[in-house]
């Protein structure tokens, strides 16, 4: 047990360091960064803001991590967010109760995920192409649902999901943290994690060992669809309306980036959801930090790109070889790499 905790700490170390450095840099430019205040029963502050704004990407990263671990990728999550947000908004304007609205939105995400999984696992289409289908078609579907307009709603329950607070924390933060813990427990307390890693590393050998590869692949994409649905509901609730064109736009790329910054290889295999969530927070911290520091907005994307390149270079195996050369005598450690 102690060993597993040590391994986990070692696995998360690069992401924790990267996050700490990014936060320290922001604090240097913007002194009030770490201050909190407590008003109307909830916490306010830049850190809380990062956790809150990062919720959609964090949720997407959970599903994306599992999909990438199977050696796949899910490009459709941004579009699925738009569809599910549209479905939730349409249901709310229809006057359905909150439970029905949520059930419809989540079911829509699950159906989208099953569709992706079916293309990948049964028809054996390359994941990048298979999910590209829904990425392109998804916004069309979302527009059909909203009938081309931004569909606004006034359902208090739904709005609470985007803007409410629970235990002092904004609802989106509570949702992604709880969901992240739940999914981590699901894959690590059962054998799912190992079986998914096996599929990602060697699908044929896994099948020959009796693993139900198609079922697990469909499950992975379904989880990704579900994550996108939750993120879509949060995004819609946040603006009290569904915007088929812009909801979740380009977020699939941020989600993939979060997974990569989290150190999970795009070639599949070993994965860590916690590391991806840290990755998502690193990305959001960069976004927020650039806004706070008052750089002209034109620079934002470039600065973000530079910081991410630095993080990725620090993680690259070549750099690790070099640094372990300087860190002699190299400690022998099996670990999760």
């Amino acid at each position, binding site marked *: 047990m102690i060993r*597993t905790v040590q391994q986990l700490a070692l696995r998360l170390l690069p992401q924790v360091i990267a996050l700490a450095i990014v936060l320290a840099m922001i604090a240097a430019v913007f002194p009030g960064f770490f201050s909190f205040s407590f008003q109307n029963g909830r916490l306010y502050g830049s850190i809380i803001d990062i956790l809150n704004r990062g919720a959609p990407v964090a949720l997407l990263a959970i599903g994306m991590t599992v999909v990438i671990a199977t050696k796949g990728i899910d490009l459709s999550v941004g579009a699925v967010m738009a569809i599910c947000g549209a479905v939730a908004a349409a249901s709310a304007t229809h006057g359905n109760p909150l439970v029905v609205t949520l059930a419809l939105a989540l079911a829509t995400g699950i159906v989208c995920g099953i569709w992706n999984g079916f293309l990948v696992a049964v028809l054996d289409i390359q994941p990048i192409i298979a999910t590209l289908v829904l990425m392109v078609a998804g916004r069309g579907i979302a527009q059909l649902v909203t009938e081309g307009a931004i569909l606004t709603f006034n359902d208090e329950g739904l709005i609470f999901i985007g803007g409410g607070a629970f235990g002092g924390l904004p609802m989106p933060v509570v949702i992604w943290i709880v969901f992240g813990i739940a999914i981590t427990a699901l894959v690590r307390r059962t054998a799912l994690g*190992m079986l998914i890693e*096996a599929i990602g*590393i*060697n699908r*044929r050998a*896994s099948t*020959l*060992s009796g693993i139900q590869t198609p079922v697990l692949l469909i499950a992975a994409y379904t989880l990704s669809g579900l994550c996108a649905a939750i993120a879509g509901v949060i995004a819609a609730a946040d603006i009290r309306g569904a915007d088929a064109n812009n909801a979740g736009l380009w977020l699939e790329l941020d989600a993939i980036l979060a997974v990569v910054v989290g150190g999970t290889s795009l070639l599949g295999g070993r994965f860590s959801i916690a590391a991806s969530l840290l990755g998502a927070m690193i990305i959001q911290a960069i976004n927020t930090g650039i806004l706070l520091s008052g750089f002209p907005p034109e620079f934002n994307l470039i600065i973000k790109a530079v910081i991410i390149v630095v993080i990725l270079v620090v993680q690259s195996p070549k750099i690790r070889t070099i640094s372990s050369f300087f860190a002699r005598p190299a400690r022998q450690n099996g670990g999760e790499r």
Partner: protein
Amino acid sequence: MQADPDIILAATGICKSFPGARALDTIDFTLRRGEVHALLGENGAGKSTLIKCLTGAYHRDEGTILLDNSAVDPRNTLDAQNMGIGTVYQEVNLLPNLTIAENIYLNRQPRRFGFTATGVMNRMAADLLSQYGLDLDVTAALGSCSVAVQQVVAIARAVDLSGKVLILDEPTASLDAQEVEMLFRIVRQLKARGLGIVFITHFLEQVYAVSDRITVLRNGRLVGVRDTAALPRKDLVAMMLGRELETEVEAGAKRNDAAGKVRYRFSGYGKGGKIEPFDMEVREGEVIGIAGLLGSGRTETAEVLFGAVRADKGTAEIDGQAVTLNSPRAAIRHGFGFCPEDRKIDGIVGDLSVRENIVLALQARRGWSRPLSRAEQDRLADRYIKALDIRTSDREKPIRLLSGGNQQKAILGRWLATDPNFMILDEPTRGIDVGAHAEIIRLIEELCAKGMSLVVISSELEELVVYSSRVVVLRDRRHVAELSGDEITTSHIVNAIASAESPAS
């Protein structure tokens, strides 16, 4: 520094350590001009590591390398190639989608006005290959040629590029007898031209057929250097193993008598385009050997039996009950296990640990919702690491870092952990050193004595003769003969494989 003009490559005091293991411990290795020098040792003895240090793929910790009496320090394989050390690996590492000529002159194509002069290049390639007695269409894609031809093309490229030292790392592992002979003719020809050739193989006959001297490594240490002619085979094996091998061949020790009732009956079983329908009965506690040349349908038979390829004809029965074996999962549910021929592609899950690889099939059978606890996993892994003598510093080591024989044992362990009744082993001893080889044969006999039924595919006929109670012979994707009892001898099997018209069983 004594300058012996005869010595082309001299490595002295080579050391190389990896975290947790000393892979090479002060190894000396000398190679003369015009000599074929066999480098032998069990899996994990350090052969590959030594080669990688010589070719710059690894950086050695200590030691000097003299090439033509001047110290060299290749930083990478390209560097070594330019200095004159060329290497040909077991898996040909050329580009199958390019033509033969393009492969030979890749990266150094003859040019005219900055464009590749294809005509010139093809002529040069054809000339080069004709020196090796090969008359080939050099514009054909390399992938369309046999592995043997690909090997020769790789050798031609390596010699043309480097031309002093040629390292052949298990070049014959996937060749048949004729192709091996062709390769050896080329090796002798190159030797006559004065090249120093390092030859790594697991086939002892080939060592005696072609090599002049032998260097034996064991556990990263140098055991000795001998002239091939002066080293009896028994002594060589003893050098490699560090002990006398009690049971190399215990021919005819065990026969049909132990076998019980028929448990598995396959009738008219087959798959269109893969393997013609065949009948097979497997009894409790017997080993069915399957013999045949590469491409005769051996592997296809195994895959159909295991459900990896779905049979489209015939029926399968277990203990008289009809069963459907339409997937590996279904077969595993009925107590089947399958060690595939290509363990890198079909067997190991490289990045997972030895422990995870061993528990994989059992965990898959239990389903994801009933995980084996970490303690159970550790116990299973330790049990099979010990029982099968899997050499690994740690059960958490990624399995891809183990040597071939140890990977094979881990996969055997994976199946034994599921407590199977019926095991299909496809070339279980291929590419494995003598020691592990004997252990696997012993294991097959043990499992059989415990009442397990086995189907074993092997291209080593002596081995089949030792443990099979019946031998099925395949040719052209058809089961053409079945030998049993005293008929099981290597010469009978060879005759059955070679005979033009099937005598049928």
